[in-house]
């Protein structure tokens, strides 16, 4: 069953009063539990596609159905609630809040739930232990290495138990060793915890961890490879 279904999706940006079409008729289906790597040159529309799947940006035309929700039909408030329940985001530059320690960064999405403070702390601890950082809960991002920060970001992405993880160049700012650790972690989350993972990457070695590799070029899906 497709958890992500995109039909004839177009995205156009206005740049200096000129329309620039970034996505041109994307059709894509992703089954629940899949691990998809999205590759392509810079400017091919990977991040834009990821943002549309994650409900961060809207399509100019076409239909986007993710986890049974037609995203075009949702108001911005409904979309925010949907994101909180459905999508876990992992960014290239971690995007942790520097004023909060690891525990509190992970706890952030749970502020949107009705869980008690004690339960929120416990869930955050569990998420940190899944990524192997429960001993760094009190450290602020500035006190952690890049790999550790990305693991905290992954803990934050999974703490609310969303079915989909959307990862934008999750290893782009890491050395090979740390990148491998992060990719292994994503694979475990996909394999053992049933998360559907959509990952944008430039790195073919990173893409090798996925079950499917999609190539995007000039706003079109040009090639699909089963890993």
């Amino acid at each position, binding site marked *: 069953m497709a958890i992500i279904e995109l039909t004839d999706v177009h995205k156009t940006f206005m740049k200096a009063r000129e329309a620039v079409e970034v996505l041109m008729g994307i059709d894509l289906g992703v089954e629940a539990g899949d691990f998809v790597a999205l590759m392509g040159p810079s400017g091919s529309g990977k991040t*834009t596609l990821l*943002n549309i799947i*994650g409900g*961060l*940006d809207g399509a100019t035309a076409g239909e986007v159905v993710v986890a049974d929700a037609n995203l075009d039909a949702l108001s*911005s*408030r409904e979309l*925010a*609630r*949907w*994101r*909180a*329940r459905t999508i876990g*985001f992992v*960014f290239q*530059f971690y*995007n942790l*809040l*520097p*004023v*909060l320690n690891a525990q*509190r960064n992970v*706890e*952030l*999405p749970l*502020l*949107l739930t009705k869980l008690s*403070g004690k339960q*929120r702390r416990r869930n955050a601890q569990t998420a940190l232990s899944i990524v192997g950082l429960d001993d760094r809960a009190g450290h602020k991002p500035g006190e952690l290495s890049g790999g550790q920060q990305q693991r905290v970001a992954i803990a*934050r992405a999974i703490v609310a138990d969303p079915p989909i993880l959307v990862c934008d160049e999750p290893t782009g700012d890491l050395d090979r060793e740390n990148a491998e650790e992060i990719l292994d972690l994503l694979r475990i989350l996909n394999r053992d915890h049933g998360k559907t993972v959509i990952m944008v990457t430039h790195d073919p070695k990173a893409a090798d961890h996925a079950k499917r590799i999609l190539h995007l070029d000039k706003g079109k899906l040009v090639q699909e490879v089963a890993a």
Partner: protein
Amino acid sequence: MSNLRLVWANLHRHPVRTYLTLLSVLVAFLLFGLLRTLAIWFTAGPAEGASADRLVVTGKYAIIDLLPISQMNAILTVDGVEAVTHQTWFGGNYQDRSNFFPKFPVEPRAYFGMYPELVIDPVELDAFQRTRTGAVVPVELMQRFGWQIGDKIPIEADIWPMKDGNRNWVFDLVGSYTTEVEGIGGIFLFHYDFFDEARDYGPGTVGWWTVRIADADRAPEVGKAIDALFENSQNPTKTGTEDEFGRAFAAQIGDIGLMATGILSAVFFTVLLLTGNTMAQALRERIPELAVLKTLGFGNNRVAWYVLGESVLICTLGGILGVGMAALVGPVANSFAQQFAPGAFGMSWSVAAAGVGVAVLLGVVVGAVPAWSARRLSIADALRRG
């Protein structure tokens, strides 16, 4: 972690900037508390301690004009007048200018007869009456300076040198007095006879008259009759209630209400610009983080509330601390204010509540534009910029 904790943590992103902003708001509200209290004190109705059956007679054109002591007998002839006594502003300092308290030369028995609210041991009043260099003081003043009866109290004169040019007046402490009534007392009293004989100039004059009348309802009529007595003399007078006298004395400084409003307007305008700029700068620095919050599912309104909450929190905190400090300064200011007029100079709850209300409003005004900007922030655009 709670929502408040998140707002609080964001304020600690740049602690120095946050604390400097807090300090500027605090100082603004300290001024607000003090100046509003001062303005209200100046324009308030009859203060506690001001008696309706006591009038004060001063020089018509300036309350610092001295009046001849010969006026006393004439005042006593006015219908409705029961008793008359006098006081004079002595000024002077005890050891240091910061040790300020009012000092008046008085006729001992007449003075305490005029103010039955002041309680003194009859034995000590007798000693005061008998001792030409004698002085009596409030118990609080004795405690403040650790004085004992029998001590010699030196006062350095600033207005009234002695005939030999010496400015160092020395008084013998012969007693103390107390009062339950706010707004009177607190004065170092010494013997007028000694003062009048020893002073270098102005013998036979007094600062002002205090007149007790039989019927408080006849105060305006009696006051006019007293002033009529001296209308064509070298020393015309102006008679009013004790409360009017005190406020007129203080109003020599100027229109305090207008000055307070002017100062506060300038201060709040400056704080508004300063804090507004700080909040706008803080927002610009955090655009990617706000976008991340929205990405995680925090709604537009919620993110806007966080931004607004920061400015409201810092302004309210500064307001509470500033108003609180002004309230603490109140008792100190009270002892100073009572030299001018009876009535407690202390911050009222209404001033405190207004201060906190203005602080919250300031926070809302300062945070409104950044909060609106945060609300409108597009996630994809902000993440691209970040």
